[in-house]
């Protein structure tokens, strides 16, 4: 099977404590995957490893045909087409919503280019389109720092879309959102589904159910169960460590 992302036996230790313990996971091109698991299961650490923030002690992370991500740093991995939304919303608060998207648009990243870059008509159109998708059009000229928590989450998703990545990693995208916002985010994710691969980490089971995708359950740094929502929620081990709490 050809995979977009192949995590192969990844282990990460912090002072002897194994945050990831021989984790393996395969993601197909265009697939959306939900990752769930109790606090401290290693979900964020997994994203840290994929994006180059943390180097694993053992194992490989292969992107596309044969790119080993563990040998690359964050900007290089980002430039390959991997975008990430952080657990804690992280936008550029002193820039406007539109400028946040402008800086995220796929394109030249070297200082000598950005010094002379001008916003092209195509870029402006793209920004407007994304503003529509993330429902922030009326806020385009607002400073990102003045947005509500949920809006910041959306803006960050918009920044990911602007990067036009092949793989999106979303760490708890609906944390702190109202029920209405959560439902809209699920809809937003269904809209972008199929166009690119997505890994969503979430605790919100209603949201995960609404996504209706294959689920991977992490526990103590490795995969406990994998399958449809009905399959994993019927698994007694999953109920014991996570759902039944």
């Amino acid at each position, binding site marked *: 099977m050809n995979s977009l992302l192949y995590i192969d036996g990844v282990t990460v230790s912090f002072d002897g404590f194994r945050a990831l313990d021989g984790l393996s996971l395969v993601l197909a091109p265009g697939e959306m995957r939900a990752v769930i698991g109790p606090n401290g299961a290693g979900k964020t650490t997994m994203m840290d490893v994929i994006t180059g923030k943390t180097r694993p002690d053992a194992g490989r992370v292969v992107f596309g045909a044969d790119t080993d991500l563990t040998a690359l740093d964050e900007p290089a991995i980002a430039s390959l087409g991997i975008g990430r939304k952080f657990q804690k919303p992280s936008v550029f608060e002193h820039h406007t919503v539109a400028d946040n998207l402008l800086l995220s648009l796929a394109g030249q*990243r*070297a200082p000598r280019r950005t010094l002379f870059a001008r916003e092209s008509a195509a870029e402006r159109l793209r920004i407007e389109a994304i503003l529509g998708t993330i429902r922030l059009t009326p*806020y385009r000229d607002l400073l990102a720092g003045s947005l509500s928590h949920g809006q910041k989450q959306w803006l960050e998703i918009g920044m990911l879309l602007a990067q036009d990545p092949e793989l999106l990693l979303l760490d708890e995208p609906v944390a702190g959102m109202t029920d209405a916002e959560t439902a809209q985010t699920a809809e937003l994710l269904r809209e972008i589904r199929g166009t690119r691969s997505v890994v969503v980490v979430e605790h919100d089971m209603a949201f995960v159910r609404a996504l209706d995708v294959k689920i991977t359950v992490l526990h103590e740094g490795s995969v406990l169960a994998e399958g449809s929502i009905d399959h994993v929620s019927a698994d007694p081990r999953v109920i014991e460590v996570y759902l039944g709490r």
Partner: protein
Amino acid sequence: MRSRSSLLTFTLILGAALLIGALNLAVPPGAAMHAPDYIVSLAGKYTCYAILALALDLVWGFAGILSLGHAAFFALGGYAIGMYLMRQIGARGVYGSAVLPDFMVFLNWKELPWYWHGFDMFWFAALMALAVPALLASLFGYFAFRSRVTGVYLSIMTQALTYALMLAMFRNDMGFGGNNGLTDFKDILGFPLAAASTRVALLLASALALGLCVLLARFVVASRFGKVLVAVRDAESRTRFLGYRPESYKLTVFVLSAAMAGLGGALYVPQVGIINPSEFSPANSIEAAIWVAVGGRGTLSGAILGAVLVNLGKTVLTGALPDAWLFVLGGLFIAVTLFLPGGIAGTWFIRKPRGARAPAAGVREAAP
């Protein structure tokens, strides 16, 4: 809007310098409107300080790099021009050597050290005034930023840098005049430094340089590059995950800023007539940071305003109460940090950025 305001700043700076120059040269001494010579040289000094402040604001205000060693770049630019001015003295020195500056004759040196060659040419010295600070900044920045040294650690390293340079320059065998530094200059480009017209010309040159630095800085911070800088300042790790390399952005602006500081120093030395190792003293760099903090970091006009106002205060106070100045400066810094975190310009001048207001109430409903 923004670019128009920097054109205004440019015009104001040049206008003020022209006015002072005209009141000095065209109005006879004794007339009420005459600007005495010391006003010309004070204005010239302040202008050079303002260039240093602007340079520091670029890295601190926009990229979050609090350099406490920027006076070193200023002093290096000053030394480069000082070397040119030394060589212009020629045989008119006390020892009458056509080639060797007096202090070298005094040290019994027989020939000019290799690194003094070329400084008899103004263009070369001017180039070095920019290139040497830029080179030092690129070496320092390359290692510091690549190793992800940030915050207070970086500030301490910049202090160490300027301190080390000060100790080195104090040594006679370095060949830069030891603790006396370089002085007794006679003329620049053939014009006597003591002449009022030369001093006015130097003031105008400094004002023009400051004005051009403002325009350059405005171009930089308004560009997409400048937006990335602010993004790096506010959320460095986030920029990495967007594919930017913060270290190369920091390095670029740090080098540009160092060259700008060098330009300030190069214009400063002919006007004050001396450059010595005390210009590298760590306190000088800290003072520059206070100018920027008082004026308002992250605003270009604020940096200039801070440099001028604080130095005006210093001039007045050191005349009246010489011992009080350091306490006043320290108190000022604490007061600004506590009560005026945006500085003068950040608090009073800057219109709220577009959209700092919430959109109309109806809009919020319209957007889900």
